[in-house]
């Protein structure tokens, strides 16, 4: 009989999630992708699996695969890894899951797993103990809406005086600092799922992107994120002053990320309908 896997809501209560931070770096004349699992975002919602993790019986494993160049590497837990960019072509996947790090007896308590799976299982080292389809796709070349979230990053800052602070002054990303841990965890989780990701990108990041578009009319803005955003919206230098106008920025956002048949508002409604109806 097969054992229950974390992440399958029919088998195990609670879920798991983690975000991965990445950036391009230069060392000794070589360009690298530096990828780091974000430990603060790591969450196991099931007490029994959390205990197994804390006892070192299961561990977080993650692998990187580039579908264009066959690049593949396996990693464990939270250490940063670096890959020469020349080994990767365009997007790459980070696949993450839990694996038994040793042989042990799997013996969950009431409520930890679906009652159908109650009992004791012999788990062998190497067994995959979560769903293994969790994936984060990194798209280094910004070109579509899905990756618009890659110029906006959010981070927990429990010392904030107010709920949010948006920082447009950093070079690589627009940073959104969020005071509430529960909110950031929920946001991360919603970004994992296809059905909710679009809605979050549109509603949460949309407002920030519109404000960011308005800032492109500023003569003094020379950040990496502003250059990426200019490329995304097809920025016209001759119309620079117009971008400051809210209506103009909203329309630019709409035209750049959506098409004639599916405007910004239509897209949100459609995504809501997909969720609710």
């Amino acid at each position, binding site marked *: 009989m097969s054992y229950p896997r974390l992440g399958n809501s029919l088998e195990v209560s609670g879920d798991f999630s983690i975000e991965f931070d990445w950036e391009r770096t230069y060392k000794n004349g070589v360009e690298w992708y530096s990828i780091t699992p974000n430990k603060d975002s790591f969450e196991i919602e099931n007490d029994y699996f959390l205990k197994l993790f804390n006892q070192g019986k299961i561990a977080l494993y993650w692998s990187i695969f580039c579908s264009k160049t066959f690049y593949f590497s396996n990693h464990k837990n939270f250490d940063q890894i670096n890959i020469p960019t020349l080994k*990767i*072509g365009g997007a790459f996947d980070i696949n993450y899951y839990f694996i038994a790090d040793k042989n042990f007896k799997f013996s969950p308590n009431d409520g930890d797993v679906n009652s159908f799976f109650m009992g004791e299982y012999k788990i062998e080292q190497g067994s995959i103990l979560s769903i293994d389809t969790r994936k984060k796709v990194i798209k280094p070349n910004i070109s579509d809406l899905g990756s618009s979230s890659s110029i906006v990053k959010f981070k927990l800052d429990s010392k904030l005086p107010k709920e949010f602070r948006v920082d447009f002054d950093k070079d690589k990303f627009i940073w959104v600092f969020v005071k509430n841990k529960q909110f950031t965890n929920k946001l991360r989780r919603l970004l994992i799922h296809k059905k909710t990701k679009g809605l979050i990108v549109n509603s949460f990041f949309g407002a920030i992107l519109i404000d960011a578009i308005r800032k492109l009319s500023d003569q003094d803005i020379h950040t990496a994120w502003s250059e990426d955003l200019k490329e995304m919206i097809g920025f016209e230098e001759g119309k620079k002053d117009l971008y400051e106008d809210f209506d103009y920025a909203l329309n630019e956002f709409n035209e750049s990320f959506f098409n004639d048949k599916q405007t910004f508002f239509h897209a949100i409604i459609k995504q809501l309908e997909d969720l609710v109806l």
Partner: protein
Amino acid sequence: MNPLKIFKTEEIVDKVIIEVDSYLKSKTPYKFVEGLLKGEFDDKFFSEDNILQDPKKRSFPKFSKPQNELSCAIELFETLKLTELNANDTRLWTYACLKVYPQYIINRNKIDQTLNRDLLYRYFFFKGGSATTNVLNTISKLWWSVNQTFDEDLKDPYQYTKILHKGSQLFQDTTQRPLIFSNKVILKGYLEFMDTKKSDLSKYIAPYFLNHIKSYNLYHYSKEQVVELLENFLDDIRKKGLI
């Protein structure tokens, strides 16, 4: 030696394909290949405006033993010195196929009057850009077969490349399964196991092995453990009377 050149942009490759599409409306794929050999398309396809010269001044090798795929693969790998990113470039491989190696492709694939449109595109173009495309194109697959198996720490760095090229069934079963071909520990274990077996055994063992990887992670496995695991599978297959 032919100087290494590539098409300037992917759009130019697309235009070449449109030209070929248009040509094939009235003529056969084989006629196109004949024209290619005679240089009939040189002005249209390979004009200076369409081509980029290699700033590093590398060259495509002239294959010393064109009938030996392994030898061609090693010569290509050693001469071109590409990065993985370069080696997934439609501009490079399409140029190589159309301009540098058409005769090799014709001989290798035994192309004759029966050549159809799909095969023409598969043999002479590099479309799609996925990992699978890397190992389907006649020329790019030579480079990738070495890149994934080359090990400079071995006395013979091409030890595993040689095994991979032992039989077409093994080559196909291995290269077209990214879970095996991308993970170098698994790949070496797999090839070492297959080295002592008949090439067509791979069609039985590869699906069995892939099924196992889906529920069991081999992260902590050494190459030797992969070999042992495969031997166990083989025993099981035999006991079940599948071979």
